[in-house]
């Protein structure tokens, strides 16, 4: 009888022990605060996505709190430095302009990150970039490339609206273009409408209204896919198809493919990084988040971390000729 009793209590002890293990194996993020660094001021596109993803990542990291911290300035470099140099404990992540990696490639001052070593989470969306022209002057890309001179409006050195056309024309070996800088996104569109410029480069989503109203015509696309509305418009890889130009097409396409990338510092423990990546993906695909994005006219077509990582590592291995072209785009000697 005593033997049976002991055996029973031993059994109770082990069952309780297994319960205890389950209870105490709380997920790492339970009760933790995660800092989400956004390298812009609040209220813009990067901030919009960060707030949406913070809200839904909290849902998939039960018990966690995500605090959005805006760190604007330095063309996204200051905030990216902060993300890169954060303690790699899985409690700091962030988002920045996809072109910030190029600042490292061209050797801009102030860069204290190694883009290829970041712990990538992915991107909630890719972007579709377009070459927009005055519809009264040009019907298609052939017209544009044959013209004597096209005047383009851009934001400034290093901005995608400057880098993309410069790299494109350089790759084709054409010089029949000029770029005027100093415009904001909306001003570039206005410059086109007012006739100050004959063309401009910009993201499809922010130029859709001008396209729909007939104030601008899309003659070239850079992106993951060709929207049905523009099935006759070529993708950049269909134009830059010579072997020597393929790397340029790949670089420009990659810049749009990664959309709005998210990463943490290098060295986050693998198990925590896995949890973060899963939560990020689930948040990016959450039906409520997708509905909010649709309502806000924002793209949500999740890009996996592997794709972003591959692109970022590729960016660090560009050929010297492309680096030279990029340096020219950034005004770096």
């Amino acid at each position, binding site marked *: 009888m005593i033997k049976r009793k002991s055996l029973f209590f031993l059994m109770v002890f082990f069952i*309780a022990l297994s319960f*205890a293990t389950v209870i*105490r194996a709380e997920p790492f993020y339970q009760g933790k605060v995660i800092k989400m660094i956004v390298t812009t001021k609040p*209220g813009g596109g990067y901030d919009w996505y960060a707030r949406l993803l913070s809200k839904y990542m909290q849902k998939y990291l039960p018990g966690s709190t995500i605090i959005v911290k805006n760190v604007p300035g330095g063309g996204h470099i200051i905030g990216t430095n902060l993300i890169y140099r954060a303690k790699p404990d899985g409690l700091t992540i962030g988002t920045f302009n996809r072109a910030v990696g190029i600042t490292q490639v061209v050797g801009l001052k102030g860069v204290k990150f190694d883009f290829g070593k970041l712990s990538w989470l992915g991107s909630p969306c890719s972007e579709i970039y377009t070459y927009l022209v005055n519809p009264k002057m040009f019907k298609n890309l052939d017209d544009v490339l044959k013209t004597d001179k096209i005047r383009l409006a851009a934001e400034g050195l290093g901005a995608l609206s400057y880098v993309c056309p410069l790299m494109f024309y350089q790759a084709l070996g054409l010089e029949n273009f000029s770029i005027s800088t100093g415009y904001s996104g909306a001003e570039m569109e206005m410059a086109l409408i007012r006739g100050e410029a004959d063309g401009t480069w910009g993201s499809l989503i922010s130029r859709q209204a001008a396209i729909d109203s007939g104030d601008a015509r899309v003659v070239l696309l850079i992106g993951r896919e060709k929207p049905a509305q523009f099935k006759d418009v070529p993708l950049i890889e269909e134009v830059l198809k010579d072997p020597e130009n393929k790397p340029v097409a790949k670089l420009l396409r990659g810049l749009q493919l990664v959309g709005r990338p998210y990463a943490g510092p290098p060295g986050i423990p693998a198990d925590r990084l896995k949890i973060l990546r899963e939560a990020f993906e689930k948040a990016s695909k959450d039906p409520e988040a997708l509905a909010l994005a649709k309502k806000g006219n924002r793209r949500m077509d999740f890009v996996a971390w592997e794709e972003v990582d591959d692109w970022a590592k590729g960016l660090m291995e560009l050929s010297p000729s492309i680096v030279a072209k990029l340096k020219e785009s950034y005004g770096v000697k």
Partner: protein
Amino acid sequence: MKKCFINIPVVILIFGLVVFSGSNSFGPQECVAGDPGPIISIGTPLVKMSKKSEVVIMGTGFKPGQEISVLFVGPDGLQSDIGYALKPAPKADKTGSWITTWSAGRYVDRKLIDPKGGAYKIVVTDDEYNPIAHSAVLFQPEKKKKKKK
């Protein structure tokens, strides 16, 4: 009747001891009587909503030299570290006091604050986001000027 060898209270006791031993679920709560601790107050408790909205936030009873983070709790409960928009950067002086001004215009302009206004929570934390104190600020929409006929 056969005597049951299972002693229910003992089973519960063993189960409880093993499961909850070492758990901090019932950890001690720190409470110092008579010490008000750090407190914050909003110098502009009613803020008219515009692109130039400013919120004055101040605190006392902090550790001298303590660095402080200020969080704004948005309409959806999401917390934002508003440090980039605080001038000067909040840091307790020798007496443990500090004062800062939050340029909240961008939050108003970009509708991160409900255009209809309302009461919002301001949380003050240490540099690791451990909450220290909180207060509320009321945002009120600006009255639209009537057009002269």
